[in-house]
């Protein structure tokens, strides 16, 4: 993009809330991709005559958590509003949403860019609403509508137009998704549409305060698509402006295979949704107690964890981010540190060995029979010299499979490391004595054979010898025979 322009990007993120039931009725929230269409519906979410909404307090609780986590001012006096428009996937002809008094306003989120720079993105508002049904247009003509999704609680998170590039958009959205998952309110599954990200993108001359004409980008089903689509759109707009043209205000789609945006719907005039306060729902008051309790119940958020890991625990930023990425992993790691493990060593083991083993088994860290303290116990055995690293990896694998304690596995498999120098010295002497040819070659200058002797000793002990001790003893005994 040309240097004379500044990118102005704001993100609207729609996140379905993982409640048991819908926003305004008792229908179950089901997987809208897998479930049989129109099986999780009732007269309320079908918008039948005389049916009335009742607010799902769990959804409000979830929305409150998110608003608090994003540093928003919490609106104690919540008003729901009707947003009026016609579409067959909108059963009532209006969507119950929040307009003038959303649950959260004036929040912010600090995001770390790949270069390490941190940027603060403003959060304009967080509001509650209900999802629509889903239309499927048939190729042979006609459309099908599935109302399973109708009335599913939805949270809309609107950023300020503080984002300046596709990469920043990706960093911001990734962080939002991570926080939603930390809070247990959304699975983050963009493929299934439970998290939908729509950037508003415009350019303005660098230094200008006015906004240029914006386009809105839809059907981005991955963070990569978000970053690429945004950058594509910025470049496209720059080219239009460079050529002396004007950007058309419109909704554009992202074509995932052609990797380009295309015009979907012109939006020459702002749509008039005729918002007004929902008369079927009295104002919802969040009392102080509710807000205070929700705030106190917030988990330590990923940004805070990362800062603590690098600051207090001495991890690298990469390690910290990798551990903090998933709340279950981070909490497992925290528990291991609390059990007395060395943070750096734990980080290595979790990020390398444990992750590999989990991947091989297709399991999640919160779904294994290994307590964090058990890994610490295993690493203690290694630190004491009672177990070598290779054996320790095998033991960890068995811990995952059987759930047994590391000491039990070590004892049962006879894996206890031999660090007894007298015993090992005898073995070393024996091995050298048994291999005169190798000794001759070694003394003749093939010093690499030192490793071969070590290997022989290790084999003789079925790997249980302490390799560091064996290494030192072999070197000493060979040196005693002659020049190395």
């Amino acid at each position, binding site marked *: 993009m040309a240097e004379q322009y500044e990118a102005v990007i704001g993100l609207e993120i729609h996140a379905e809330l993982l409640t048991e039931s819908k926003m305004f009725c008792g229908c179950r929230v089901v997987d809208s991709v897998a479930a049989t269409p129109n099986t999780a519906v009732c007269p309320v979410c079908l918008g039948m*005559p005389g049916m009335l909404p009742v*607010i799902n307090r769990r959804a409000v609780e979830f929305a409150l958590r998110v608003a608090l986590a994003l540093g928003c001012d919490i609106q104690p006096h919540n008003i729901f509003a009707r947003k009026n428009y016609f579409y*067959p996937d909108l*059963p009532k002809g209006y969507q119950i949403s929040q307009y003038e008094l959303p649950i959260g306003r004036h929040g912010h989120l600090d995001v770390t860019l790949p270069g390490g720079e941190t940027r603060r993105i403003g959060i304009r508002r967080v509001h509650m609403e209900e999802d629509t049904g889903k239309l499927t247009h048939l190729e042979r003509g006609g459309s099908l509508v599935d109302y399973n999704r109708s009335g599913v609680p939805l949270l809309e998170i609107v950023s300020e137009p503080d984002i300046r590039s596709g990469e920043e958009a990706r960093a911001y959205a990734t962080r939002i998704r991570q926080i939603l998952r930390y809070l247990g309110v959304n699975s983050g599954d963009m493929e299934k549409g439970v998290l939908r990200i729509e950037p508003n993108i415009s350019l303005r001359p660098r230094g200008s305060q006015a906004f240029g004409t914006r386009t809105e980008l839809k059907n981005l089903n991955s963070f990569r698509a978000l970053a690429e689509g945004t950058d594509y759109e910025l470049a496209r707009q720059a080219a239009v402006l460079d050529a002396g043209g004007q950007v058309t205000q419109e909704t554009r789609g992202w074509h995932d295979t052609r990797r380009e945006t295309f015009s979907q719907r012109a939006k020459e005039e702002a749509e008039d949704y005729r918002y007004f306060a929902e008369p079927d729902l009295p104002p919802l008051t969040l009392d102080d107690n509710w807000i205070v309790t929700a705030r106190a119940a917030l988990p330590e958020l990923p940004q805070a964890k990362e800062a603590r890991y690098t600051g207090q625990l001495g991890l690298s930023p990469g390690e910290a981010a990798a551990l903090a990425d998933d709340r279950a992993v981070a909490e497992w790691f925290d528990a291991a540190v609390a059990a007395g493990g060395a943070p750096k060593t734990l980080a290595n083991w979790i990020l390398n060995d444990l992750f590999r083993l989990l991947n091989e088994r297709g399991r999640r860290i919160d779904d294994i029979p290994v307590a964090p303290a058990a890994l610490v116990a295993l690493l203690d055995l290694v630190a004491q010299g009672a177990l070598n690293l290779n054996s320790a990896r095998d033991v960890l694998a068995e811990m995952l499979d059987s759930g047994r304690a590391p000491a039990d596995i070590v004892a049962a498999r006879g894996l206890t490391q031999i660090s007894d120098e007298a015993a090992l010295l005898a073995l070393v002497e024996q091995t050298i004595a048994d291999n005169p040819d190798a000794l001759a070659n070694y003394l003749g200058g093939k010093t690499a054979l030192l490793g071969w002797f070590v290997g022989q000793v290790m084999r003789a002990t079925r790997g249980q010898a302490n390799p560091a001790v064996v290494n030192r003893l072999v070197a000493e005994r060979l040196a005693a025979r002659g020049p190395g």
Partner: protein
Amino acid sequence: MDIATLTLTELRDALRRGDTTSVAATQAMIDRIVAYDNAIGSYLTLADESALEQAAAADRRRAAGEDGPLLGVPVAVKDILCTAGIPTTAGSKILDGFIPPYDAHAVERLIAAGAVILGKTNTDEFAMGSSTENSAYFTTRNPWDLERVPGGSSGGSAAAVAAGLAYGALGTDTGGSVRQPASFCGVVGLRPTYGRVSRWGVVAFASSLDQVGPFGRTVADCAALLGVIAGHDPRDSTSLPAPVPDYEAALTGDVRGLRVGVPREYFIEGMEPEVEAAVRAAIEQLAALGAEIVEVSLPHTHYGLPVYYLIAPAEASANLARYDGTRFGPRVAGADMIDTVRQTRALFGPEVKRRIMLGTYALSAGYYDEYYGRALRARTLIADDFRRAFESVDVIAAPTSPTTAFRVGERVDDPLSMYLADVFTLPLNLSAACGLSVPCGVDSGGLPIGLQLIGDTLQEARILNAAYAYETARPWHRRLPVVPAEV
């Protein structure tokens, strides 16, 4: 004993004594409906088969020693309340053939109390009107004069009770739609405090104004019905969790010391002199019974009509958006999805379309503040008027409507004159008050006149007792219309 002329509470007591049966009472009503309703047109749907089954079941329960507040009593329900298995049209072609899979809360309560549902009564389309002339099906006639309207929108229910085609009935009152037809038909009709009766299952017209209310020939009948349908319902978030008093027990007839406010704004130029005279005489009667008459002012009354005609259509414009032919009701296929919605919505009648347009306009960007937003502020002033008045009085007495029943066709081409029929009833709907209409005389043509008694929030028992005291002194309800059969 002519079973058909009993009042609701008289029938209930006769059933309790074993003097008659529910089947006999239900059959008597069905026979009368068959004989007279061709002329009156109060019912849109007669549920005679299921009514007789319910009656037989009620008689069996009675025989087994059971009782219920309305066990075996046949009643009618305005066709804007949903009834499971019985067509519910809201008086509109756009719901032609719609059979809800659920009962409205008020209907559930009736059934739980043992009542027999005779059928569904006519209404102006989506309760938008004051005469039933806006019904998409036919116009109900006033039993006192078949050339005249019964009032509306709950004109079918009012006419059915007046003509002895039901012992009691439910209506809805969004701007006067229970009280005004009660006044025109010479029966008692009560509009409860907003939230007193659940709106669950009531086809919505204007959600912040709609309220279900009972019709009866007597005040006691209304009290009995209200006691059944009132109460908290968690499915309606605007439903009040207040306990339900025994409204019938509150009917002592003692109004000594009751402070009755007479609002000067309710006696206006243009009202029929006979109406004013009858209402003033009724207030005198209350004074004679020991009530203290106080002049009060409700200074923002004149905002009532314009405010109502901004707020109600605004809410209606959204409430009626769901009628798009996609999920229920008739569908008129068009060229594409949007055209289908457009063609289907052409099934709305002219008054409904007018109000959808009024409401859409009032909510539009650039006009919201000027119209809807202003109306909301003025609504607060009107509500404050009542609140302030009730600091010094217990009950407010006023005419229900400025005129008696007008002729069929007289006002159909003039929406504004039609809207004026509700000028005394709709301010209440904009407030947190409750009100009723009780017969207080007739004009020179023999047409009934209604006295409106307005009470503060949840003071239904108080206005019922004041009406009961008046009714006991001046039993206008004993005068019955003579309805010709088969015209």
